[in-house]
Structure formats: C-alpha cells, structure tokens
C-alpha cells in the first residue's frame, strides 16, 4: 500500500481504487462519500451525518466486521463543531478504517450505530455524556461516567478544565 498522503476524495479514489472500504462505499452510494483522506497510513472516509448507519452497514458487509471504537472531537468555535470518528477493524484484511461524520453544534444528533453493532452502546453513551451529542434510537441514552444530575458536557472545549465554579 502507498505511503503517501492522499489529501482529498479525488486523490484517494485515484490512489486507492481497489481498497475494499472505498469500493464498498462507492457501491453503496457514490454521492454519499463526501470526503476521504489517507494520512499516516490511516484511511478516513467522511459521510454525511444522516448516512452513518447505512455506511456502517455497507462497510460491515464488505468485511469490516469489528467495531472497535467511537468517539468525538469538539472543534468549537468552528462549524460543523463535532467530528465523530468510528474506528472499524477488519479481521480479514487486517486493517482498520475511520468513518467520519461532522455534526453541527446546534442540537447535535445522529442515528445510533447500535443497530449495526450492539457494542456501540457504551461508546455512544460516553459521547452523549461528555460531548452532548444525541444518538437517535439508542436503547438507553443516559450519562455513563458523570453523575446523572451533572450539568454540562466536560469534554466540550467551552467547558473549563477545572469545571464551573
């Protein structure tokens, strides 16, 4: 596989035309793949937030069988504010990809990935707890690490490190 950085969708499509994940997403919906990046030997594929679940399903069907991790990054005050990263591992290809969705800071919500992998449950609860991103269709969306009655979402960038006094 190439070592070079492929900075955008066109370069990735040209540089990695046979990559199973790229092929799977193109076959699912060529328009759905909004952006792509191959950097430091890691492939990031970006889809619209409303497409997360179908994209995950397409990847799962293409051999990316194991959900490994899911988290968010807050780019406050930039918009779209929250970048969600799903790290999906393929036991078959011995390779990992990152599925990315950018969610607006104004009432952030996406569909829950628990319908694809029930194991996404705790990870989404964590993102809900610490970032305040809601996951529609999650079976038990409630705080997991912070106390139930906590105010605010500590990993947001506008939340001070020492907490509110």
């Amino acid at each position: 596989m190439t070592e070079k950085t492929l900075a955008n969708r066109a370069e990735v499509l040209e540089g990695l035309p046979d990559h199973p994940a790229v092929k799977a997403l193109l076959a699912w919906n060529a328009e759905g793949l909004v952006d792509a990046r191959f950097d430091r030997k890691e492939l990031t594929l970006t889809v619209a937030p409303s497409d997360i679940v179908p994209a995950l399903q397409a990847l799962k069907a293409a051999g990316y069988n194991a959900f490994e991790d899911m988290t968010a990054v807050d780019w406050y005050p930039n918009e779209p504010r929250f970048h969600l990263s799903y790290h999906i591992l393929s036991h078959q290809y011995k390779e990992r990809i990152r599925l990315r969705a950018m969610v607006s800071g104004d009432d952030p919500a996406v569909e829950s990935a628990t319908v694809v992998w029930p194991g996404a449950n705790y990870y989404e609860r964590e993102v809900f707890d610490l970032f305040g991103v809601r996951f529609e269709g999650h079976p038990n969306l409630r705080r997991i690490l912070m106390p139930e009655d906590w105010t605010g979402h500590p990993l947001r960038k506008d939340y001070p490190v020492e907490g509110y006094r």
Partner: protein
Amino acid sequence: MADFDVGTPILEAPVAEGAKDQHMVLNMGPQHPSTHGVLRLVLEVDGEIVVRLYPEIGYLHTGIEKTCEAKFYQQVVPLTDRVDYLGPMANNLCYCLAVEKLLQLEIPDRAQWLRVMFTELTRLNSHLIWLGTHAMDIGALTVFLYTFREREDILRIFEEVAGQRMMTSYFRIGGLAMEPPLGLLGKIQAFIKTLPEKIDEYSNLLTGNPIFRNRLMGVGMFSAEDAIALAITGPTMRASGIDFDLRRDMPYSSYEKFEFNVPVSNGCDCWARYEVRLQEMRESVKIVQQALDGMPEGPVKADAPKIVLPDREKMKTQMEALIHHFKIVTEGFNVPAGEVYQAIESGHGTMGYYVVSDGTAKPYRVHMRYPGFASLQALETMCKGRMLADVVAVIGSIDIVLGEIDR
C-alpha cells in the same frame, strides 16, 4: 444474532410486572471485594438466578482525557500510567506509538526491542494479578500468595529500570527514558528462567482442582458472534474461538520479528478464558526470552534533538543541547496537525489511543479505548440465567480494571 439487552435501566423500573412477589433487586458494589475496584452492579434476581444485570460505572472517573488536553505531549505519559494501573508500560507504549506516528519518528531497534520486552513483562504482571484475584474470588486463596510473589519480582525489575514500581512512565516519545541499568537484563533472565516452573505450579494448584473446574466450566458462555457484536477483544475474544491478535496480525514496535503462538480456544466459557490466559503467560515468557537473546545494540532514543531530551551529560556540557533541553521542558514541541489511532494488544485486549493534533505543543484531543469498557457490556449476556455466585466468576474471567473503564 442474539437480542442484546446492554443496559436496561433497572433503577427506574425495578422489577418486571407480574414478578413483584418473586424477584428482588440486589445491589453489588461499589465496594464489593470481587468487583475488582469500584464497579457497581444492580441485579434483578429470581431466587438465586440472575434475571437482569446493570453495571453502574463512573465511580473512578477522573477526567484524564480532559486533563491530557492541558498538558504537553510528554507530560501525558505519566497520566497514561494511571489509566490501566496494572499494565503501566502497555499504556505508555500505546500513547508513545500514537504520538510517534503523528511525528513520523523512527525509533531505534534497541528501544523497540526493550519496549517489547517490558510490555511483555507488563502483560505477565497483569495476568499474574488476574490469576491471583480470579482464583481468590473462586475460593482458592493460596494461588494469590504465589502469583503476588512473582509479581513482586516484576515490580522490582520495574523499580530498578524506572525508579517506580507501578507508575513507571519509562517510555518516552522517541524511545526510552534511559538505558536500563547494568546487570538488569541478567536479572530479567534469571526471573524468566524460573517462571515456566512457577506457571506449572499455579496450573497444578488450579487445573485439576474440582472446585475450580466446576465453578468455571460451562459458566459465562459467550459465543464468537456475541464477541464481535459487543466489541470484545483480547483473551476473552480468543477464548470464544476468534483467532486474532494485534501483535501477530497488525504488528507494531517490531513484534513481527518475534515468534510466538496465539492461544485460541473454542470453549467460550470461563474455563476457556482461564486456559487462554495461562497459555498466554507461557508465550510472553518466550517473547521475553527472544528479546533477551537477540537484543540489538545501539541507542535507546531517536535522533531528534528537538523532541527527545538530551542526555544529562550533554546537557551540562554542550550549549546546543542545553538550549534544546530548555525549549523542550518549557515550551514542549509542536506536533504536526493530524489525527492517528494506534492500537496495541494489552493484557486485557485491544487498547487504542486516538490522538488529534492541531499543530501546537499540546494534544487537541486524546481518546483512550480500553478493552474493559467494552467487556462490561458482555456481563449481562454472560450472567443471564445463571446463579448469582457465577457473576463473581464471570467478572474475574473478563479481567477488568476499573481505572481503564472510568478513566
């Protein structure tokens, strides 16, 4: 696929309608000795049969991920020790590999081999504690004393090399803190030589023990399908018949140069997990032995004066080194913008660090993926319909550390 019920909010609807006169809600923890820290379980039981189980976590939440955002890259290393406090060097390794990937830094061979050796010692340390406490939960008290005897040897090695027994912070971004002291490799050799006998000793105490066997066999059944669905990794996954180990399949830190087997079992129960981990300890011994035999010569720090602190001697005698030292300590070093996810095989399973840089000297975001967090999701599937006492055996068999779950 089974219908997973990860986390039914038990506290709100305590007992199922129609079962009010038979079912009881039982609170276990957070100070229960068999929950390995501060795990709280809320159980709905029908007599002694577990109907539902709901883990309540967060009692040990310290906001380490938030703290990381306020530290220089190097200052994060001591924080990582405290996450999975039974596997300090594995935490250090995973974080350092992630940042080195961001920096695209080449690490000298000797540092890589020493890292492998110490990470395997860490795995042994972690498995020894697991074995001791697991056996103790089941009622075999003696094994605990034996495994802690060997663990003490490992901690002495750690103390000698890092100055600390548990919170080692020995790995640095760009290599190791310093060359291990003279004679240490000989001590590791002496320890490793006796360890297979000691593992036989534990095995003699447990493997044929009818109580231990009956408490583990057929308990906590967990299929390969369940393991994938619930993001379970590591020995728990391999005991369900999935043959995947990051050390072999996606090697890092020159693991590809070592020969070892990946123990897999199709037993799917607590006993299979016991056997897989015991076998893993023997494999770790092999890896440490290979590292000692083939240890390359050379530096233990990368040649990157703007990132790696200079040796003390150089710092005191050379102007250039003094300037670099001053700059690194006071301002840190800038890391090119980007994001990486680095995963390694820790004692408990897949440990992953997701580090995002915005080009400054402090990480923009550090996310830690730890195996125990996912393993808790499996508890209900493993315990449902079993006796209450089996919950204790199952918690022992998934080998959790609450520090890594709550972070």
